[in-house]
């Protein structure tokens, strides 16, 4: 066994050279070579044997973990025992062997385990933090699942109610037309409630028509506007507002106010295209066009 200790590298090199010579002589002796051939081959074979590294290569992090090296310790590094002056056999490894990468990474992890105040976290804290993080992620996942599931459940309930009510109404509809209208309204209200969508309000009566105010770019849009007259949000009209160019005829059912019937979209579900040029906004006497909707919403003559 080749050992290297405090006696220095020279002795180890001598020992190694002796080992190499013995090995080469044994090899040459086993091949019945004459003296001249053996002499010619010896330096070449010794040079080939010189390819053997003098020390083990520094292990990779994975390999260092398998080697079960203690943190920051690589067998070539002088340990406390060696520092105290005791000769230590380190199995043929130079004291100047580079420390493995794993040791450096361990040191970096130790540094990362320090909190902002410079105090080291103990293992329990780290485990606690990890478990809290896991719990938070699990709760977030449950919340997302619940949010995705609720609308689906409401829609299913609404469909079941509609089917049951429709079956009951169908039986009575043949006899009483008024009952059919009432039932249709009730179904609309129930569906709207379950699906959390607000049913369209009834069409305004002629004496309740909204007053056109300056600053609104669309009739019926009562949102506050910017000084330039543009709405602060998207300019999509509310569903209850009368659309210019669309016949907002109210189908009157005796005893009931029905919703205004809008024409079908031209291309299967696409809402009707609004005219690019809006109708001229009527000037209100005494109204300030620069005022917002909130300020100018009073009826003329009130102030």
């Amino acid at each position, binding site marked *: 066994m080749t050992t290297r200790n405090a006696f220095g590298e020279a002795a180890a090199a001598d020992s190694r050279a002796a080992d190499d010579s013995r*090995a080469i002589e044994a090899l040459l002796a086993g091949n019945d070579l004459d003296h001249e051939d053996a002499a010619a081959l010896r330096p070449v074979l010794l*040079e080939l044997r010189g*390819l053997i*590294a003098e020390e083990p290569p520094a292990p990779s992090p994975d390999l260092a973990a398998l080697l079960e090296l203690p943190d920051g310790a690589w067998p070539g590094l002088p340990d406390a025992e060696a520092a105290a002056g005791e000769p230590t056999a380190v199995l043929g490894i130079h004291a100047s062997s580079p420390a493995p990468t794993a040791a450096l990474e361990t040191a970096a992890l130790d540094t990362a385990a320090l909190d902002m105040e410079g105090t080291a976290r103990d293992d329990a804290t780290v485990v606690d933090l990890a478990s809290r993080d896991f719990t938070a992620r699990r709760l977030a996942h449950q919340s997302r699942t619940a949010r995705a599931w609720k609308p689906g459940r409401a829609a299913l309930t609404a469909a079941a109610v509609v089917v049951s009510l429709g079956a009951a109404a169908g039986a009575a509809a043949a006899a009483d037309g008024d009952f059919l209208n009432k039932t249709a309204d009730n179904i609309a209200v129930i569906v709207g409630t379950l699906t959390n969508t607000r049913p369209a309000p009834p069409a305004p009566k002629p004496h309740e028509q909204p007053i056109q105010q300056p600053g609104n770019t669309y009739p019926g849009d009562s949102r506050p506007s910017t000084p330039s007259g543009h709405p602060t949000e998207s300019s999509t009209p509310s569903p209850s507002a009368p659309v210019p160019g669309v016949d907002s005829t109210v189908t009157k059912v005796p005893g009931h106010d029905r919703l205004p019937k809008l024409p079908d979209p031209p291309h299967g579900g696409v809402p009707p295209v609004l005219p690019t040029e809006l109708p001229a906004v009527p000037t209100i006497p005494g109204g300030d066009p620069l005022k917002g909707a909130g300020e100018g919403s009073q009826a003329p003559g009130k102030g």
Partner: protein
Amino acid sequence: METLTERTTAAVDTAVPSSAFAQAYTELSPAVLGYLRARGVDDPEAVTQDVFMALYPRMSSVTGGSAGLRTLVFSIAHARSVDFHRRQGRQPNTVQHDPAADPRVTESAEEQAIARGVGGYARELLESLSEDQREILTLRVVADMSLEDTAAVTGKTVGAVKQLQRRALTGLRNRLSKKGEGER
């Protein structure tokens, strides 16, 4: 040649892989590195790590003490080197053009010595041998393996190994003679 300590051998025989593995790495990795260098493997250090990573799960099944462990280690190293050469045969090695390494420029003697590195001359001579002869000679000289162990690693008979070794040495001798005549 027995290079592993008695403690290592005992640890291997009693299937205690942890300390035995570290001991095996310390004792055998220099020879594995040298073997892979002699076989011309790119990045021999990384392949050495691979060899010992592959050895670790098999440590408990090693039989035959230190000789058995050495045979297993070099069997893995041999397989890795064969894999490397097969892979290299399938796909050409592409390197970026480096003007400093352009072979059309004559190197100085110093540059040649540096490029050769340790054992450069011997490796150059090895290139003149056949693949089998090169493999046998490397295992016998660098890995320090017996004829029987070499036969086990390469999957050949002892007689075939002996014959290949003899031819390899004769080939090296002839090559050296030709070189000597050329220099004169």
